[in-house]
């Protein structure tokens, strides 16, 4: 039959028709017979197809109803069990991970507390409840509560956090319309220590039975995703800070700021090989448990929220001279004993570069740094040239924002001269005309002085050195350290001497720029960038005081040597033992003096 479709039987086969004619039959009957057969054939085929379809449909429905039946049976005979998470017991993990210092001491954690809300429609005595609540929480407004409790509202938030005592007091009101929702609260147990690094946290989306905690600043904002990621299974975020050192730093810095009548202060302590920031402080500070709102008017840089060490970009003054000296040595322009012209004043166009004192016609390169001669440094910068200076400062990371892991670091972008002309080159060589943050300075110092390898500042604990490309040779680095050591032992930073720790450093005093242009006569930013111990560098410490002023030895002093250097020395005295550095007996005389060639 299946061949029929291919080989169609003719309706009037000639052989049969001739035979029929011979027999005298009507040949049309043959045709009719064939038509009938063909129709029957077609009918059979379509019937078979329909049967197949019906069968498939039937099987499908049978399976479907069968599954439903089996499932119903299963459900009917099984005992109801509450679904429960099973695991190896790590079950409950806080919503947001802790933050710890490098030794695992807690810097931020969560505690459970309650939020208070009201269902006014369930209240027995709304007026009484409102009065009692105002008695417990004096900051609530009675009129608002009365309006909310007696009005149309069916849900009112009253407070986001309650202490257990307050919760008990609210219980004692005995009002069924006052309800509690569980809350996790971010706690910074150390208060204002490392406040600018912590930043702060607030509630994001809120519901009755939980609320998400969202970081608003500092590491809390930078690592928000990490801290909230359940994949980490509650593992804490370990920072490079050392809580003890940080506390000592802030203690000394606060004392120094008060003693020197400064408006603000900041300090950065950095490991020279890993780039880990061990302590970083900015004063005035705040309590991250109760983060103040950003000021809507006035100067944002005066707010306690402003991180002077990271966000504040200042012209830092003579601390930059060591970069010029290091580059001059690196490029072979000078060696530590090369005589540099220092006869002031140096005139360039309409600009005049002067020194604090007149240092005579010439000084050796070491003495240019030790006595801090602007004229000498400017001469060196002229020899180096704008392009090379720019490349060198760029290689130290002084021309872009630091990759420091707090969200504010992106805002700490150095201010460069719009046109890096020769006069810019000369002023930048002694730290004017280029604004950068104390953190930039600490990073650049560490890179130049650790043996000459670039490092990046980091806030996360590192397991070993993270050394980048070479910026200066090891010899240049050692020579620069020797110069800085001499600045302390016989130069402008003589108050910076801490017996046993071989402090080397450079002072910088910069006049503050007026907002309307020009510079103040009587307001300075005093900076001391130091490294200790100079012969075997471990840490870089940068301390900055904003508008220091002190009356010593019959004069009002605003220079770094009289103001910030003693503060930094006291800081090193306090923190070096905490860092495990033991005082060493020093060898006298400059380090590089025996390195003469014949």
């Amino acid at each position, binding site marked *: 039959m299946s061949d029929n479709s291919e080989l169609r039987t003719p309706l009037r086969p000639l052989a049969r028709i001739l035979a029929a004619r011979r027999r005298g039959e009507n040949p049309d009957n043959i045709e009719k017979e064939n038509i009938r057969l063909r129709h029957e054939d077609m009918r059979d085929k379509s019937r078979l197809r329909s049967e197949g379809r019906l069968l498939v449909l039937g099987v499908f429905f049978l399976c479907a109803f069968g599954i439903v039946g089996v499932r119903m049976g299963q459900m009917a005979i099984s005992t109801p069990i509450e679904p*429960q998470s099973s695991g190896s*017991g790590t*079950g*409950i993990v*806080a919503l947001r991970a802790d933050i710890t210092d490098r030794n695992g*001491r*807690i810097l931020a*954690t*969560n*505690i*459970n507390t309650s939020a208070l809300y009201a269902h006014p429609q369930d209240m027995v005595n709304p007026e009484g409840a409102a009065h009692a609540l105002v008695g417990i929480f004096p900051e609530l407004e009675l009129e608002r509560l009365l309006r909310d409790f007696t009005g149309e509202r069916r849900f009112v938030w009253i407070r986001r956090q309650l202490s257990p005592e307050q919760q008990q007091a609210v219980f004692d009101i005995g009002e069924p319309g006052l309800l509690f929702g569980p809350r996790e609260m971010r*706690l910074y*147990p*150390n*208060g204002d*220590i490392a406040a600018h690094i912590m930043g702060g946290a607030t509630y994001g989306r809120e519901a009755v039975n939980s609320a998400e905690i969202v970081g608003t600043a500092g590491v809390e904002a930078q690592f928000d995703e990490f801290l909230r990621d359940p994949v980490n299974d509650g593992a804490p975020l370990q920072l490079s800070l050392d*809580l*003890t050192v940080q*506390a*000592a730093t802030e*203690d000394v810095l606060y004392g120094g700021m008060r003693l020197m009548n400064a408006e603000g202060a900041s300090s950065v302590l950095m490991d020279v090989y890993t780039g880990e920031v061990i302590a970083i402080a900015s004063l005035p500070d705040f309590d991250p448990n109760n983060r103040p709102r950003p000021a809507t008017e006035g100067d944002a840089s005066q707010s306690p929220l402003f991180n002077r060490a990271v966000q504040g970009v200042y012209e830092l003054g003579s601390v930059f001279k060591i970069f010029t000296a290091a580059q001059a040595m690196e490029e072979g322009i000078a060696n530590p004993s090369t005589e540099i012209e220092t006869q002031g004043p140096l005139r360039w166009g309409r600009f005049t570069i002067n020194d604090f004192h007149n240092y005579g016609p010439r000084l050796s390169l070491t003495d240019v740094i030790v006595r801090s001669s602007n004229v000498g440094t400017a001469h060196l910068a002229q020899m180096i040239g704008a392009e090379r200076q720019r490349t060198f400062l760029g290689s130290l990371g002084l021309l872009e924002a630091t990759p420091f892991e707090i969200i504010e670091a992106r805002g700490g972008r150095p201010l460069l001269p719009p046109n890096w002309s020769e006069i810019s080159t000369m002023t930048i060589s002694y730290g004017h005309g280029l604004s950068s943050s104390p953190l930039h300075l600490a990073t650049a110092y560490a890179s130049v002085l650790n043996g000459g390898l670039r490092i990046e500042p980091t806030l996360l604990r590192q397991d070993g050195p993270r050394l980048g490309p070479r910026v200066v040779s090891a010899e240049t680095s050692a020579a620069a350290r020797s110069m800085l050591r001499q600045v302390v032992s016989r130069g402008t930073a003589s108050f910076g001497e*801490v*017996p*046993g*720790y071989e402090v080397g450093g450079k002072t910088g005093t910069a006049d503050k720029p007026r907002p309307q242009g020009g510079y103040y006569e009587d307001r300075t930013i005093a900076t001391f960038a130091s490294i200790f111990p100079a012969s075997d560098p471990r840490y870089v410490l940068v301390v900055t005081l904003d508008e220091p002023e002190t009356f010593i030895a019959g004069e009002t002093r605003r220079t770094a040597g009289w103001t910030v250097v003693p503060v930094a020395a006291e800081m090193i*005295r*306090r923190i*070096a*033992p*905490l860092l495990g550095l*033991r*005082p060493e007996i020093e060898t006298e005389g400059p380090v590089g003096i025996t390195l003469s060639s014949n």
Partner: protein
Amino acid sequence: MRSIFYILSALAVMGLGFWAYRENYQTQSAAREVRELRQQIGLEREALAVLNAEWAYLNRPDRLRELASINFDRLQLLTFDPSQFARVDQISFPPFELRNVSNSVEVIGTLEGAQE
């Protein structure tokens, strides 16, 4: 013979039934216990978090500094100072005494017959 076989199998079925019943209830109680323990672990964890927070709060540097200054008369605690580092030979150890020699072993002898 046949009746004994029937009785034994009936007893076996009853015994197995009883055993299965007991196992079932033991399993359920064990599961309940696990659940309770989990809950307890959760509560302990929560308590631990609170205690950790409290420990950190009580050990905050500001408070320790205040306590040290309040109790200065008794404890005389001062900040850590570079002069407090010392070498081992600066420590006065108790005087060293020679012990009595007992149970000595002879290590010197004479070679007999060596002269010959």
